[in-house]
């Protein structure tokens, strides 16, 4: 066997990329050719030298990247069915294969729907004597019927009766309406969530978040509080939302991630400080720890830096 062939394959021998036969041939040749054996030694040394210089991403960088991605995923949509069908003819073919079953389903659903609609129409005819109480133009509405979300254009005010769970909310559709009821009423909850999410008036957002913090057990409420914490432009509202989430940092990982995000990226140092207090009991968590390390080095606020340092110092060293 020629030395040229062996030398061209020594690299792949070292990288374990040779077929068994070729590997055997190379080994046989190396046993009897000292020059090629020297070349193997040099290649191995070169391989080892390059392997020394390995940079691993820090846990901090990984945690930050994960958080950033989670945030972005919240506002990203997957390519929908239409997108897929237009872009992929194979998907079309699959759809066609399913066509008979789909046609049967459409027929059954259509038939059932038709019967249901007829039944509802007849039933409504019987109940039409004054049971609908909503009025347009300044009227008060019963709070236990859900509202059509698209009809709400804004919330004017949120007032809670002292010492009770009765809430009064003035809201606009085409004209201003008012709804009253307890915190447990579906319509009241719906209006409060709407106010916390979208209202232009930060005073109203503050009031609604304040009322919502009384019912953080509800996952929708927690979601609204997290939304306010991440997106509200008013630092007071964000603080209020943090307050409402305080009991869930330990048990709900989504809440914990939200608070950590605020800790890293909120521009208001008061909010960051409050978030720091909330994660303190969780400082052994690896994500929390890496955020604390980052804060202790890079936060603009010296008091936050020193507090983060102190919290890290209280922890036992971990590998």
């Amino acid at each position: 066997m020629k030395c040229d062939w062996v030398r061209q394959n020594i690299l792949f021998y070292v990288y374990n990329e040779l077929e068994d036969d070729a590997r055997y041939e190379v080994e046989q040749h190396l046993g009897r050719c000292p020059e090629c054996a020297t070349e193997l030694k040099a290649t191995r040394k070169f391989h080892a030298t390059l392997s020394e210089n390995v940079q691993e991403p820090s846990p901090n960088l990984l945690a930050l990247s994960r958080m950033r991605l989670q945030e972005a995923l919240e506002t990203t949509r997957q390519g929908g069915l239409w997108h897929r069908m237009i872009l992929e003819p194979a998907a079309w073919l699959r759809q066609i294969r399913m066509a008979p079953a789909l046609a049967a389903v459409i027929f059954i659903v259509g038939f059932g729907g038709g019967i249901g609609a007829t039944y509802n129409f007849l039933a409504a005819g019987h109940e039409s004597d004054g049971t609908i109480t909503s009025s347009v133009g300044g009227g008060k509405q019963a709070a236990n019927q859900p509202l059509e979300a698209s009809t709400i254009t804004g919330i004017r005010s949120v007032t809670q009766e002292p010492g009770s769970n009765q809430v009064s909310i003035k809201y606009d559709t085409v004209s201003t309406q008012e709804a009253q009821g307890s915190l447990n009423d579906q319509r009241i909850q719906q209006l409060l969530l709407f106010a916390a999410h979208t209202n232009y008036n930060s005073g109203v957002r503050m009031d609604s978040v304040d009322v919502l913090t009384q019912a953080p057990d509800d996952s929708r409420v927690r979601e609204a509080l997290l939304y306010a914490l991440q997106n509200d432009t008013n630092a007071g509202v964000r603080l209020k939302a943090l307050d409402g989430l305080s009991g869930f940092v330990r048990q709900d990982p989504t809440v914990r991630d939200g608070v950590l995000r605020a800790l890293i990226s909120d521009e208001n140092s008061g909010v960051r400080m409050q978030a720091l207090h909330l994660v303190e009991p969780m400082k052994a968590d690896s994500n929390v720890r890496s955020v604390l390390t980052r804060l202790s080095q890079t936060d603009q606020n010296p008091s936050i830096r020193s507090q983060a340092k102190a919290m890290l110092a209280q922890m036992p060293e971990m590998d």
Partner: protein
Amino acid sequence: MAAQGNRIDDTGLIREAQQGNRAAFEVLVRHYDQSVLRLALHLTGSESDAQDVYQEAFLKAYKNLGSFRFECSFYTWIYRIVTNLCLDHLRKRNVRKEDAPVAVDSSGEEYSRIEQFADARSGANPERDLMRRELGRKIGSALTQLTPRERMVFELKHYHGLKLRTVGEMLNTTEETAKNTLFRATQKLRAALLEMR
């Protein structure tokens, strides 16, 4: 390397994620994201660029997951996305000729990747640290002499331990071409390192 070493059966997770289950997608991300970030960090040399590549790759994967047809492994698929993004990055950087082995951390401060490497291992022997730092600088400089494709093949083979067949699949080429590219890359690196001695 870890992700490839214990290749997990992701079929169930992928199907759930394709149906819009974001939590399933996030689990998938965690199976591979460390390797993805490592690759991006090595090739871009900057923490903030690596974060951008990481983010863009997984968002792209999320948006296009519906078109994933199990014709290759998810690992190969996500790496194909990342390698394309990194190749774009390397090509742009070659045009800008900003190849100094200096990285920028997330706070915007510049630091030498090599020095950081040496610091992490610094022991009682400052002379040895200095030599290691010098060697790191030479390797960094030698790597910049490779074409983006050579750099990618070398990175995937040497630092990620992938088989050349998989590297070829990821880069939409044959195993033979990947083999030739690796050979060329290592020849260049050896020559560059010898010259620097």
